[in-house]
């Protein structure tokens, strides 16, 4: 297992704007303020797969793990190998040279997850176990 914790906390700004505009009318913007230091676990098989996928592009690319609303249980996981995004608001975890990026807004939803990879034809691929999830749907992509 490979554990890593890093901190990159950004302060979220408060802006004002609104519907029925004009005349100085504005509404307060709501932002997510709970940002915690993310700690995730990557299994040997997941790390091996991550290294293989990103091989040769470690300096420019990373794995972004994120969550968004939706799915049957409330939230959906999203994983993308992509060019490294701007550092602002991301926490960066280094697993033997492979960088995993997690956005601050997802920190409370994804803290403590275990990233695994199953090399099987049926039901294979990356799999996330999330201690914050009280339930997840059958396909494993949604949690709540």
């Amino acid at each position, binding site marked *: 297992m490979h554990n890593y914790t890093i901190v990159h906390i950004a302060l979220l700004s408060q802006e004002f704007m609104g519907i029925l505009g004009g005349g100085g009318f504005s*509404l307060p913007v709501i932002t997510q303020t709970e940002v915690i230091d993310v700690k995730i676990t990557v299994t040997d098989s997941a790390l091996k797969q991550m290294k293989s996928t990103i091989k040769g592009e470690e300096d420019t690319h990373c794995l972004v793990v994120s969550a968004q609303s*939706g799915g049957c249980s*409330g939230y959906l996981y999203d994983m993308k190998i992509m060019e490294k995004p701007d550092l602002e608001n991301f926490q960066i975890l280094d697993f033997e040279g492979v960088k995993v990026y997690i956005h601050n807004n997802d920190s409370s939803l994804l803290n403590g997850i275990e990233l695994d990879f199953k090399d099987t034809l049926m039901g294979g691929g990356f799999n996330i176990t999330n201690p914050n999830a009280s339930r997840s749907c059958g396909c494993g992509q949604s949690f709540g």
Partner: protein
Amino acid sequence: MLSEESSCSYYIQDCSVTVIEGKDSIIHLNRIITSDIREINDLERHKSLICDANGKITDALEISSISGQLLVQGISEKSKITRELIVSGIHWNEEVQIMNGDGALSIISIFSRNLDEIINVLGEKSVNEQYGVWNEYGDYYTLKIELKKDMQVNILIQTEKIQDFIDEIEKQGVTLSSMNSWNHHRIENGILSNEEYSHKFLPSELGLDGIVNLKKGCYPGQEIHARLESRGKITKKIMRYNADAALQPGVYKSNLGKKVIVTSTLKNKGFAVLSVKEGNEITIEDNISLMIEEL
């Protein structure tokens, strides 16, 4: 101007107001709700629901697209939970901003048997020709709604301007609706409120299948809704009742031994969620007889 016999009344809606802005706001909200709003046009209003993973209703929404922003009205008691859900699920790569309109934006409903009476008060071009489409009119927006028995026009207005608006319509004979009068309007026209939604019913139990879209893809509760739809197992449904005695909200038992969940009441009338096996006339405890009809 209204005659003295005007039957126009107004009621200030007790609802939460959230405004969502940004190029991804529709996609973002669409992932959470039961209906599909991807094709929403400017000034249109769509009804929708937020459900939990068990398919039960947690909030009932009216979503309007106004000048590139989404106006989301929900149940006031659920505003905190719903807003947390909307805010926490924004993908890092999406442009979405959530704004709190509670206390800053208000909705007033003016209702009457006759639409002309309302138009006489607000002005000739005050409402859109189409029902369910907002119309910008002076300092506010109006939305014309055709109900089962009444006509209703909703007014979206900045709260700081509400008193001037009320003064103006009261001058023209529109009267503030009491809670009883509003409940009478609701029950007559089949308008559901928090009394119904707070019981965490399934959409089909409240007759809201029409705002559940099983083809749009996953949303919280979709698995349950799809299963119910494919198996056709709807066991209870909301109905309007007229009893021979006044009832209080609560759970009663019919002479078939089935639950009768009374949600809204006004004297002898109200809404009840009951077994689909019940007939048009049922008897509950204390030998009270209820005449049942569809909403």
